[in-house]
C-alpha cells in the first residue's frame, strides 16, 4: 500500500512539472530548428507548417539548419532554461515543484491510516521492526520504512467441495465406505508478521491442511457417524488438527471454525440409503398398526367384560326371573322378525320350499 501511495505522489509531481512546462516546451517545438536539428530534408526545400514561427535568430553554427552537435544543444538548452525560465525570488519554479513533491512524498509515506480491523506491519529496510495498531501511525518515509496493511479481524472463508449434485468430494470413512462431503473453513490472521513472512502461499496452505485434516478425521469415524450424529465432533476435531498443524508451521493463522455443509452418501448409492429410511418408516407403520389393533381389542374386551359384569350383578339378585326374562325378551326379538312355522301334529313331514325361499331372498335383494 505504501508503495502505491508513493507512486501516486510521484506521478502527481511529474504531471505538475509537465503541465508547468507545457507552454514552454510547446514554444520550443514550434521552432522548426529545434535542438534535434532541422531533419535530413532541411528547412529550405520542405513545406513550412503554417503555425511555425520564423527563427528568432540564427546562430553561426546552425547554418543550413543542421544543428547536431551536443555541445550546441547544451548551450542552447542552458540558454533556454537559465535565461528564459521564469523565476520567483531568483529560484526557478521547478525547484518549488520538487520541494512540494518531496513534501507530499513524506506525508504520504510517513503517515498511515490503519483501519480498526487492520494491523500495519512495518519493515525497515526489509527487516521487521514493529506493528502498527488501528489509528494513525507514523513511520519513516518510504524507501526506509514500508507498511503492509493486513486485515486481521476479517474472517475469511475457504470452501472445499460443493453442495452441487454435479461435483462430488469423495472421502473414505473408517469402515471403508465413501461419503460426499462439502465443508467450509473460517479463519483469520492472528499474527500478521508470521502470516506475511512464514508461509509462501497461506491460502493454498490452509486449503491443503484442511483437506488433509478432514480426511484424517473422517478416516477415523464410521459412515453412520459421518452422515449423522458425529458431524459436530468431526468439525471440532478437524479444527483442532488444523490449528495444530498451522501452529507447527508458525503460520499466524487462527482457524475460527469448520462447518460441514453437506455430508451425504455418494449419488450412486443414494437410492439404497433412501431405501433404509423408507424401511424405517415402514417398520414404524407396522408397529403403529399393531398398536391400533391392540388398543381396539383391549377396549372391546373391557367393554364386553364390563357389560357382562353389570348383567351378572342383576342376575345374581334374582337368578331365575332374570334368566327367564332375558330368554323371553331375546326370543321376542328373534321370532318377531323371522318367518315362523309351527308344526303341531307329529308325523307331518314339513315341506321346506327351498326355491320359494331363494325367490324371496332375490326379491329382497332387488
Amino acid at each position, binding site marked *: 500500500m505504501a508503495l502505491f501511495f508513493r507512486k501516486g505522489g510521484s506521478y502527481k509531481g511529474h504531471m505538475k512539472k509537465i503541465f508547468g512546462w507545457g507552454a514552454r516546451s510547446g514554444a520550443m517545438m514550434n521552432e522548426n530548428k529545434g535542438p534535434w536539428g532541422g531533419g535530413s530534408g532541411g528547412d529550405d526545400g520542405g513545406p513550412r507548417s503554417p503555425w511555425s514561427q520564423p527563427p528568432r535568430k540564427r546562430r553561426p553554427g546552425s547554418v543550413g539548419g543542421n544543428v547536431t552537435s551536443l555541445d550546441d544543444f547544451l548551450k542552447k538548452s542552458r540558454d533556454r532554461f537559465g535565461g528564459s525560465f521564469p523565476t520567483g525570488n531568483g529560484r526557478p519554479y521547478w525547484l518549488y515543484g520538487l520541494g512540494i513533491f518531496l513534501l507530499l512524498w513524506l506525508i504520504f509515506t510517513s503517515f498511515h491510516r490503519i483501519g480498526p480491523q487492520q494491523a500495519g506491519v512495518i519493515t525497515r529496510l526489509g527487516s521487521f521492526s514493529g506493528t502498527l495498531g488501528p489509528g494513525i501511525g507514523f513511520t519513516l518515509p518510504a524507501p526506509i520504512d514500508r507498511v503492509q496493511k493486513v486485515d486481521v479481524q476479517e474472517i475469511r472463508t475457504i470452501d472445499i467441495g460443493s453442495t452441487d449434485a454435479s461435483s462430488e468430494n469423495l472421502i*473414505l470413512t473408517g469402515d471403508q465406505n465413501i461419503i460426499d462431503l462439502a465443508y467450509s473453513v473460517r479463519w483469520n490472521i492472528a499474527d500478521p508478521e508470521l502470516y506475511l513472512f512464514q508461509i509462501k502461499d497461506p491460502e493454498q496452505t490452509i486449503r491443503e491442511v484442511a483437506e488433509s485434516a478432514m*480426511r484424517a478425521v473422517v478416516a477415523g469415524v464410521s459412515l453412520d457417524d459421518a452422515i449423522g450424529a458425529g458431524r459436530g465432533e468431526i468439525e471440532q476435531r478437524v479444527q483442532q488438527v488444523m490449528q495444530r498443524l498451522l501452529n507447527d508451521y508458525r503460520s499466524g493463522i487462527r482457524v475460527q471454525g469448520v462447518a460441514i455443509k453437506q455430508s451425504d452418501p*455418494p449419488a450412486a448409492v443414494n437410492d439404497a440409503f433412501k431405501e433404509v429410511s423408507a424401511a424405517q418408516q415402514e417398520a414404524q407403520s407396522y408397529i403403529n398398526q399393531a398398536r391400533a389393533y391392540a388398543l381396539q381389542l383391549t377396549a372391546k374386551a373391557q367393554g364386553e367384560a364390563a357389560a357382562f359384569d353389570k348383567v351378572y350383578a342383576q342376575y345374581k339378585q334374582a337368578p331365575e326371573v332374570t334368566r327367564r326374562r*332375558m330368554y323371553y325378551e331375546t326370543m321376542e326379538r*328373534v321370532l318377531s322378525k323371522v318367518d*315362523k312355522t309351527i308344526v303341531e301334529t307329529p308325523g307331518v313331514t314339513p315341506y321346506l320350499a327351498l326355491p320359494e325361499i331363494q325367490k324371496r331372498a332375490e326379491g329382497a335383494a332387488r
Partner: protein
Amino acid sequence: MIGQVVRNPIAMAFAAIFVLIVAGTTFAVVPETQQAVIVRFGEPNRIINRYREGAPFGETGAGLIVRIPFMEEVHWIDKRILSVDMDRQQVLSTDQLRLQVDAFARYRIVDPLRMYISARTEERVSDQLRPILGSALRNELGRRPFAALLSPERGQMMDNIQNALNRVAKQYGAEIVDVRIKRADLPEGTPLQSAYQRMQTARQQEARSIRAQGSKQAQIIRADADAEAANTYAEAFGKDPDFYDFYRAMQSYEATFVNNGSGEEQGRSSIILSPDNDYLREFRGRR
C-alpha cells in the same frame, strides 16, 4: 548547491543518475522472506538472513546489505515454508487394493549455500523432491493393508515417509516440515463401483432387517393384546360359566337371526318350531 543545480542542471542530472546506479549496485535490501547468497565472481561468498529456527522477526539478518558493485551478485532464496505438490499416484496395498493418493510436503531451505550449489532455484528443489515423495509414498503404503491407511497407524506411516524424504532433502539444503496425504480415493471404475455396490448391499441388508424388526414387534404387540383380551374375558366370565353360556347364547341368537341394524343384507330366516319347544311351553296352556 542549489545555485549549482540551477546553473548546471543537466550535468547534475547525470551525476544523480550515476549515484543512483552505484547505490543500486552497492546496496540491497534483504526482506524477511528471503535469504540472500552473495556470489563473488560465481563463487558463493556469504549468506545473509539465513534461516535460524525460532529467530524472532526483526532480529534476523534481514535489512540493508552492502556488496561490491559488479563483482558480487545477490542470489535470492525463499526463506518461507514452501510446498511440493505431488501428482496423483496409484498405490497398491498389500491386500491388492488400488488407491489414488494425492500428497503434499512442506519444506524450508535451511542451508541456502548447499541449495545454491545443488539446485540454484526453489523450483528445481521441488522438481527433485516430487518424484522422491511419490516413490516414498508408494513404498510405504505398498507395505501395508488398505485398512491401515484409514487408521491411527497413518501417523507412523507419514513419519516414515517424512524421514525418507528428509534424507534426500538434506542434499538440497532443505528440511521437510511436514508430509501429509491430501486425498486417498478409490480409483474410478471397477474399484469405486464395487465399493458402491458393497455400500448398496449393506444398506439393503439394513433396510430388510429394519423391516423384519418392525413386523416382529408388530406381531408381539398384537399377541400381547390378544392375550390381554382373553385374560379380561376369562376374569369376567369365569365368575359363572353357566350364566355366561346362557348370556352368550342369547346374544348369539340375536346376532344370528335378527338384522341388527348394521345395514348388511342378511339371509332371511324361517324357523319351524315344534310345539314341544320350550318357548311354546305356555302355548299349550297349563295342564
